[in-house]
């Protein structure tokens, strides 16, 4: 054995999450859960509306993250599925379907549409695929106008539904919040499980390298179709939730601009990250509100600047903030001389080094871990 010349790894090592971090995560999770359960009981309808909206777009972003963040296929069409889901739900409500049926179909029909599109397009990659997804909202808007018997045309449809059952003593906004929160919770749990195991690894390798995927028994085509189907289903589901919260749908619901904003929010939150998805939704809903607080007639300027600023500070998304802070702290503690400014000298850092925030904080030295 080559012990004499074996390197002692200088590399940083992330051990499986330590007990401490796990406990911290559990406590944080519990705290968030408590807040999410209690908040609507003590907040105004406006706050509840915002919280519920966050749930709605979190699910839309979750779908987008499955296809784009985890599987690496750019999708510019998520708004089309959101709109489709909302229309199906509206149709169901107006035709007195049981709510469970609306819920089911609001996910299944978009999933089927998404799957059909993917069956045709999943052989493509990169921008060609992006182009095809882009066409969905572009074509969807005039289609929605055309079939006004189903959609209510350009006027849209007001759908007043999902009133709180008398027995619960909840106001409508609270009840609607809990409904969408439960749906969002279930969706998040399922997707979290999915992306952690076998299927998640197949998504990741399709994103990274299709040739390797093939050699490991992963069909990139099927994987993309699967991811796209899931993304569409979640998009549709978020449409159901949208209708529950907004109580109105129109062609404006599925415009292309919404897709673009969703993509931005997904990246801002943190691509390929469950927590990041939730943070992205927070961003999506709250930044326009904040911009309005600052100056309503300069919202574009403000939200553009905020978007850029966040990207500058956290290129890996809001989800990297704790890691970023931890690194800051450890860097301050460390004795190393300050590295020279690489941001200014773009050619200097290596590519792996360039995405600096993605590098985890150094754990304890691991030099003695091998024989």
């Amino acid at each position, binding site marked *: 054995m*080559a012990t*004499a*010349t*074996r*390197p*002692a*790894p*200088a*590399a*940083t090592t992330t051990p499986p999450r330590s007990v401490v971090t796990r406990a911290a995560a559990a406590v944080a999770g519990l705290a968030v859960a408590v807040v999410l359960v209690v908040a609507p009981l003590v907040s105004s309808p406006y706050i509840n509306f915002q919280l519920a909206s966050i749930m709605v777009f979190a699910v839309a972003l979750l779908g987008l993250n499955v296809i784009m963040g985890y599987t690496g296929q750019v999708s510019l069409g998520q708004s089309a599925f959101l709109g489709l889901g909302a229309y199906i739900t509206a149709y169901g409500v107006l035709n007195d379907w049981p709510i469970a049926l609306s819920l089911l179909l609001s996910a299944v029909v978009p999933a089927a549409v998404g799957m059909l599109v993917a069956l045709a397009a999943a052989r493509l990659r990169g921008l060609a695929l992006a182009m095809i997804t882009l066409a969905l909202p572009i074509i969807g808007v005039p289609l929605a106008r055309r079939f006004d018997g189903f959609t209510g045309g350009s006027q849209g449809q007001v759908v007043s539904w999902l009133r709180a059952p008398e027995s619960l003593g909840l106001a409508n906004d609270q009840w609607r919040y809990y409904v969408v929160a439960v749906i969002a919770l279930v969706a998040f749990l399922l997707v979290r499980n999915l992306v952690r195991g076998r299927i998640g690894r197949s998504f990741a390798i399709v994103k990274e390298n299709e040739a390797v995927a093939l050699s490991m028994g992963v069909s990139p085509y099927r994987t993309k179709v699967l991811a796209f189907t899931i993304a569409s289903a979640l998009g549709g589901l978020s449409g159901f939730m949208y209708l529950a919260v907004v109580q109105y749908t129109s062609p404006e619901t599925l415009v292309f601009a919404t897709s673009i904003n969703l993509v931005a929010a997904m990246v801002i939150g943190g691509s390929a990250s469950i927590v990041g998805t939730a943070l992205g939704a927070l961003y999506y809903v709250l930044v326009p509100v904040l911009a309005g607080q600052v100056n309503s007639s300069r919202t574009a300027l403000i939200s553009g600047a905020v978007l850029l600023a966040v990207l500058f500070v956290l290129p890996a998304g809001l989800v990297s903030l704790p890691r970023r802070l931890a*690194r800051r702290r*450890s*860097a301050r503690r*460390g004795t*190393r*001389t300050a*590295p*020279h400014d*690489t941001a200014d*000298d*773009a*050619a*200097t*850092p*290596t590519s*792996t*080094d360039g995405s*600096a925030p993605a*590098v985890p*904080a*150094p754990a304890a030295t691991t*030099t003695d871990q091998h024989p």
Partner: protein
Amino acid sequence: MSLLELDGVSASYGHADVLHGVSFVLPDNGATGLLGANGAGKTTTLRAISGMVRTTGRIVFDGRDITGLGPDRTAALGIAHVPEGRGTLGQLSVRENLLVGAYRRRDRKQIAVDVDYCLDLFPNLRERVGSNAAALSGGEQQMLAVARAFMAKPRVMLLDEASLGLAPSTARRVYDAVVRLRREAQVAMVVVEQNANLAFSVVDDATVLETGRVALQGSSAELLGMDAVRRAYLGG
């Protein structure tokens, strides 16, 4: 006169410190080797020289402190780095790759001559001169990476496992060409090479790295005289 001098060079990726005070001197027209196990820091040393990692310490090239200069700047000064693995421009043709290699040069006619020289040296490349570099076989890409460095007419070449994936005869040919370049064009070189036989056939002296530190330094003959070195690198 020393052409290149490393003095207490340390380097890090993000927050992982990888090199710790590496020093060596490369004389004008010299050839020095870097040896070490996987992960010892050979590649990182070369990257430090050409400015691809964060570096502290002092790197002096031709009397000028180049610590912290980016790779385009060091390349412009005459340092040609043949990187580890695929160092080619995949969607450009073989010929275009060679022309990019000669980017800094103005001597049009001589460039054409040199392209021809490279294609002669590597007949495989001549056969595929119009195809995208990404289509080439692993070894052919390696040849192209070396040829591209030749095209730059550098003053010093940093060869990171230049024989990686090359057939024995081709590997030999590459190093013959390198030696010729050294003789004819006074090109100095730093050689990282797992194939120690090849390495020792071209270098005058060598540095052995272990976990980012200099473990041994000496002339080829001295090093070859050491049992530990022979065992680890030559199996003899």
